[in-house]
């Protein structure tokens, strides 16, 4: 129970924040969006992503999959986000 809450709230937030960071740098690179606009859109979507993650973490019967999915997903999105990061046009 404690482990599931930690996974959902903690690892879930790391995953959501990673996805937000990835979107914030990927949208300008892929869709040509302005940086500030991508930041706002990514952060707004972040709340929906986090909500879905919290619900999934509560429902998934195998706890190890929750941990693995969230930590793996978080690591992947953070690595990609920091990799794509573009120089900001002033």
């Amino acid at each position, binding site marked *: 129970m404690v482990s599931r809450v930690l996974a959902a709230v903690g690892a879930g937030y790391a995953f959501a*924040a990673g996805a937000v960071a990835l979107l*914030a*740098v990927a949208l300008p690179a892929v869709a040509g969006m302005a*940086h500030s*606009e991508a*930041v706002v859109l990514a952060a707004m979507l972040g709340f929906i992503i986090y909500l879905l993650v919290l619900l999934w973490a509560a429902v998934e*019967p195998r706890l190890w999959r929750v941990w693995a999915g969230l930590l793996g997903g978080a690591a992947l999105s953070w690595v990609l986000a920091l990799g794509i990061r573009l120089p900001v046009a002033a």
Partner: protein
Amino acid sequence: MTARLRQAMAGLHTWAGVCLGTLLFIIFWMGSLSVFDREIDRWMMPATRLPAPAATPSLDATVVPVAERLAAGAAMWTVVLPGARVPAIELRYTDGQGQPVRRHIDPASGRLLPEAGSVGASGFFFPFHFRLHLRFADLGYWLVGAAGMAMLVLLVSGVIVHRRIFSDFFTFRPTRALPRAVLDVHNLSGVLVLPFHFVITLSGLIIFFAIYFPAAYQVAYTGAAGGARAAFDQAAFGSWQRPASGRPGELASLDAMLATARALWQGREAYQVRVRHPGDAAAYVEIRRSVADDIPMNIDRLIFDGTSGRLLHRHGARPVMAVQRFIAGLHFIQFRHGLLRGLYFVAGLAGCMMIGSGLLFWLAARRRRGAGAGMRLVEALTVGGMTGTMIATLAFLLANRLLPAELAGRAGVEMQVFFGVWVLGFCHAALRPHEAWRAQSRMIGLAAVAAVVLNTLTTGLHPLAAVAAGQWAVAGVDGVLLLSAGLAGWAARHGRRSSTAAHAAVDGGHG
């Protein structure tokens, strides 16, 4: 839908509700009060009960002399222009001790009104709603954010758990045994106002996107000159700044700048004028457009040179930001619409009712299985958090009318009264668990009546006189106080010991 999924959701709903329900109740309560914060401000600051100004007053004649005298040496001062809800001009600045100051000026005569000695509802209930007055490390924001995410989880899991969502519209059995009746209140208030609850919670989170997901701008603006946050604020919100020069300068006409602003905005009005580095040759003036005209909380702003009055910079929201501002506008309802504001108030209280009855259902169902230490704790937190918060709110209003005007640090004492009474409410609930509901309901009734009586005695404006004088803000606050007194009295009298909690829950929704 599988039984397993429903079971998982039921567990999630129970635990998220029990752990964060009381905090959510407090946030919904403070949010509901904040809908009418300006009206409560008029009640709490009698000197500002002025007729609505007919025309925009001249800032050069009324505000500038006062500001140059009071805010001499301040890094900036801000003027909020008067309107229908705030009939006085507001002048804000930080004094020599670093304390924020808010003074009012009569727009008709230019007279500086006496100090309010109160931060009012807009300075207390409103920040309470989103940061709980916990400034350390943004802790308050994060607690409210966690409660907000929990609210979304509770809404989704609640819909999945309740299999008969449509028939719940029409089910209310107040005469049935306690847990069933309370559950009906919970379902009824939850289902009827479900879309509002989802939108208000999600929009509340989205307002603070930059606090809750700082990763977005930190990654996107890494290495930007002046820091990631400043670079993002500049691009998204049009923050504009320049340092002071150290040489003295004369402030150009603010009225002329307002006229230019009105022309650039096709006749739409400004609501705020901020002068930075006043008295300096590098002074500049930021003018923001009113948010009373339409739903989005626009971020249209103009920057003028302080000494020449020349336009330096113009900003408006880009498309995605405009969507964010629309969502924020749905939450803040600062646009002119009194009826809708009333509906927000009622829907917010329905949220309190849903949260409260959910907690009471859990307590009532648990009590049948015997009381443990954990249950005692939740019970005390629930009573203290619900009726105790209402009593503390009323104590804040009573202190406002009772404390002498010349008391040093009066505004701070008002807030200390709130927190003191709040703590007492929790202690009372913990020590007298069986009587707390009825006793606190009775106290709500008495305090609400006392507030109306004290307002009449100290300002000479009883509710009917307020109606006759067109003081709708004062009449409205008094009216809601009297209504809650009636409901609280009814709850205290009719609540038999076994079902006290159910009535208190109903009362909680209307208080």
